[in-house]
């Protein structure tokens, strides 16, 4: 059984087809990358898988469960995490306060527990705190725990966002351009982190513009163009695929690779 199986996924906005009949499988524990020129439908594809958009047609099967119409928050409970291009962190708050809420979906305390500060509430608060510290340790930010988010670097913010996703105890993580807006050195560090995540058993799926990073990182690459899948394979195969070169690498991206 495939880990994630996508069949005939299509999304139309009005008369515009953003994603067109895409079949795709994501393998467990691997790093999968989705690439394509601007406007190729990558973001829409992500939004479909994570449940922000309902597909016009097609299906998404996650570990044998049909999640095509599952709301975002239920998907998260099943083990689907994602990050955004803009991190959406609460800048005025500390790093740890941002990450604690990540474990919220595994806790049960409700308003009643909050008002009466029940034992469950205290216990789960501790759990959420511990899980957050663990996640921040994993991404290497233990020394920034009490810093205000506004005061840390862009790369650190990306790491906080990843820690937040990790705190949800996911099975798969979708990263939307994690390396956007950070410098080459930091990009390498981030690639290392993504490998580490995959090694810990969490499947990674990413959209990325930085070709060099992807070519050295991904196990499988899917190429989207005008909403349709035009190629799929190992980085080596993709590099030598004439259709990909024609549609995508022919432009400025080729220069970036070389």
């Amino acid at each position, binding site marked *: 059984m495939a880990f994630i199986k996508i069949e005939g996924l299509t999304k139309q906005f009005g008369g515009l087809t953003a994603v067109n009949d895409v079949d795709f499988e994501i393998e467990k524990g691997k790093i999968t990358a989705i690439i394509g020129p601007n406007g190729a439908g990558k973001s829409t594809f992500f939004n479909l898988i*994570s449940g922000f958009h309902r597909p016009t047609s097609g299906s998404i099967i996650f570990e044998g469960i049909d999640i095509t119409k599952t709301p975002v*928050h239920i998907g998260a409970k099943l083990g689907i995490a*994602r990050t955004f291009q803009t991190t959406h962190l*609460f800048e005025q*708050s500390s790093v740890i306060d941002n990450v604690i*809420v990540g474990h919220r979906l595994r806790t049960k305390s409700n308003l009643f527990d*909050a*008002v009466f500060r029940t034992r469950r509430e205290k216990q789960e608060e501790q759990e959420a705190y511990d899980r957050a510290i663990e996640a921040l340790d994993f991404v290497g930010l233990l020394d920034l725990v009490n810093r205000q988010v506004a005061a840390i670097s862009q790369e650190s913010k990306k790491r906080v966002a990843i820690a937040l996703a990790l705190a949800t105890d996911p099975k798969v993580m979708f990263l939307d351009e994690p390396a956007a807006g950070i410098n080459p050195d930091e990009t390498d560090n981030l690639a290392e982190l993504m490998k580490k995540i995959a090694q810990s058993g969490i499947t990674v799926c990413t959209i990325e513009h930085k070709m060099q990073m992807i070519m050295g990182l991904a196990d499988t690459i899917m190429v989207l163009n005008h909403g349709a899948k035009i190629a799929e394979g190992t980085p080596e195969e993709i590099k030598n695929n004439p259709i990909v070169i024609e549609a995508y690498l022919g432009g400025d991206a080729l220069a970036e690779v070389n």
Partner: protein
Amino acid sequence: MGKLLTGRNGILFMLGLSILFPLFFLDNRYVLYVMTTSFIFIIAIYGMNLLAGYTGQLSLAHAGFFAIGAYSVGILTTKAGMNFWLALVLAVIITCVIGFALGIIALRTREHFFAIYTLIVGYLIYLLIDKWDGLTGGVRGLIGIPIPNSIGPIEFNSAVSMYYLVLLFLVLSIFIGVRIVRSLTGRTYIAIRNSEELAQTLGINTRTNKLVSFVVSVAYAGLAGGLYASLTRFIGPEIAGIEMVFNFLVYLIVGGIGTLTGPIVGTMLFIWLTQFLQSFQEYRMLIFGPILVVIVIFYPTGLAGAFYSLKHKWLGNKEQKKEKISEIESMKKTSIQSREV
């Protein structure tokens, strides 16, 4: 100074002050009455803050729910002859039920649509109270709302006793508010305010959480309204009006939206400022309006927020200095070590 008025000390100090307050004004009913009124407003604004400041949903129907609480007590006591306490409990329940039903619909809309929707719901509540003569007394209002029935030997026929009664409810309201904000539930609300999209990907059911915080918020408004009816003993449709919700908003914003002390600071400040500017009553908005604009532009978290960030800056500087000192010391050590090697 900073340490004196924050944390446990600050809370105990404020509590002590508010308990002792009536002793200085035993024969001044007016001062006690104004203070009691401001406590009631703080309760209402605490609810507004919970929803707007923490969950991030600006509801402009809050005065409407305040009025629903007030009119529930008013109608149940004067027309149905009900005991005040029972009426108060029922008023909160009625407000919650109406809030729940409206919340389900209103929360389908987002951001500015939610603000417009609730503004208009609030206005409809006002129109309904104003026009439904048979039930609400229309523009004439409801008169002769009784004071709370006595509990054993405790009677509520004096300004002092009403003061303490409302103070008790206020302390309870703040206590519950603080508990909620500092819990996992509170963190959930803040996550929703911060980004609904992100909250959803973290497995938070934003719709349910928003609805619960909406209902809690209107419960505060209903309670405050019920107490208000019994304190003033006369209510008119204007308590549901747009002016009222704007007043709430001014108090909240100037005090500090999304802070725990903001509603208290803002309400106290403005209620007493308004009293001192009594002759200026009609035109106070000439000053309040621009203050609101300036605060939003320069101090988005209000007076409370400005105070906290000042404190932070001050402490932060101290901490940085400490860090620097320890850094220098460790550098010294390493240089010494390397020399030894």
